[in-house]
């Protein structure tokens, strides 16, 4: 019997979501942004795995949980080149391609303490400065934030 190398490192998933190709140093941010510490799903992490593309990569397998678009958007802000696969009965049934979202509602915190979003019970809203730009603009106070500095609510 041959055993696939990857299978040894991270257990196969029956139903759920696999987030692959996360740069290793972004793993814990992705865990935080998806609030995984408060889920009851079984979760398997792989950290510092060898990757031809990234050098070292991380992988997250979440059992019985299927990410929604808003959650996918959050991941894009931290690891835009991650690959998200939806697994059913051990098979990839959907690949969710990731790019920076043009607009994010209720995800990113505005860093401007004088912004209305930090002073009123309401959702934040950011839009990408230009297509492919790594900068976002607060829809309300119009201050910009670079993807690197983004703080997630």
């Amino acid at each position, binding site marked *: 019997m041959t055993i696939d190398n990857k299978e040894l490192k991270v257990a196969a998933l029956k139903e759920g979501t696999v987030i692959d190709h996360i740069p290793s140093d972004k793993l814990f941010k992705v865990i935080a942004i998806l609030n995984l510490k408060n889920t009851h799903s079984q979760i398997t992490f792989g950290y510092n795995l060898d990757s031809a593309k990234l050098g070292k990569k991380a992988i997250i397998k979440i059992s019985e949980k299927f990410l929604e678009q808003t959650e996918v958007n959050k991941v894009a802000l931290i690891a835009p080149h991650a690959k998200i696969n939806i697994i059913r009965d051990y098979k990839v049934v959907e690949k969710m391609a990731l790019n920076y979202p043009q607009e994010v509602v209720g995800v990113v915190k505005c860093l401007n303490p004088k912004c209305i979003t930090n002073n009123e019970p309401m959702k934040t809203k950011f839009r990408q400065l230009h297509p492919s730009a790594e900068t976002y603009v607060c829809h*309300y106070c119009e201050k910009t934030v670079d993807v690197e500095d983004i703080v997630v609510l």
Partner: protein
Amino acid sequence: MKGKSLVSITDYSKDDILRVLSAAKEFEKNPNQQILQGKVVATLFFEPSTRTRLSFETAANRLGARVIGFSDAATSSTSKGETLKDTIKMVSNYADVIVMRHHIEGAARYASEVTDVPIINAGDGANQHPTQTMLDLFTIQQTQGRLNDINITMVGDLKYGRTVHSLIMAMSHFSPTFNFVAPIELAMPEKYKLFCKENKIPFQDLKELSQDVIGNTDILYMTRVQKERFSDLMEYERVKNVYTLCASMLENTRPNMKVLHPLPRVGEIANDVDDTPQAYYFQQAKNGMYARQAVICDALGLI
């Protein structure tokens, strides 16, 4: 015609700007018209600003509107902890248009999303003050006879000065040329220089207000250089004089050249400039009323 909010100057297209300016020109000829009879204009000044509030309220009164509102948040229900949303919803039951000033940035944008009543932003912290920009444009058109191909020299605090940033955005429709004159600490942010590059607007960064620059300028736009902006007070003492305009610097200007300033000034324009033919900042302030009359009418879909 449906009315619309004015929160940021970029809410106005080039056509919007031209339409509102031509209405302002009519109000300049005849500021007393009963266009707004039967209308209620609310002026909600969560942050006090007597200058701006009087300009808006006079604008509304001269057009026959009734004005309701408050002049600082202490007298409003926000002092009892009411959210902005609830205040706006409440006032929306009474007013046809809401003029608001708030120290919180983005307050006017949010207000425009929680009501169908048009919102006119009269300043939201350091963010936007679009009617100031409309009166600046009106003044440029009035003094130059056109908006196209104007050489504008901006002087002073170009980093934090929201009026100069908005003026760049608004003038970008009219192929301007800019000179940015500021100390390094207060230089024009990259963001706006990038905007100029993308829109093929020629500009130069300068540290000194030289005779040469003044001689090639149509509009000299002065701004306040505030002490609080400097971490090094020696530096402030040094630069404040470098950027002070005095009458002797205006001897060889273009005949059409005018000096503008959003007022109040602190010391950037010496008193002897007031008597020169180039001084235009007091007329500029007066134009605020015509521009605001036009903006209010536009918000109500009346022009």
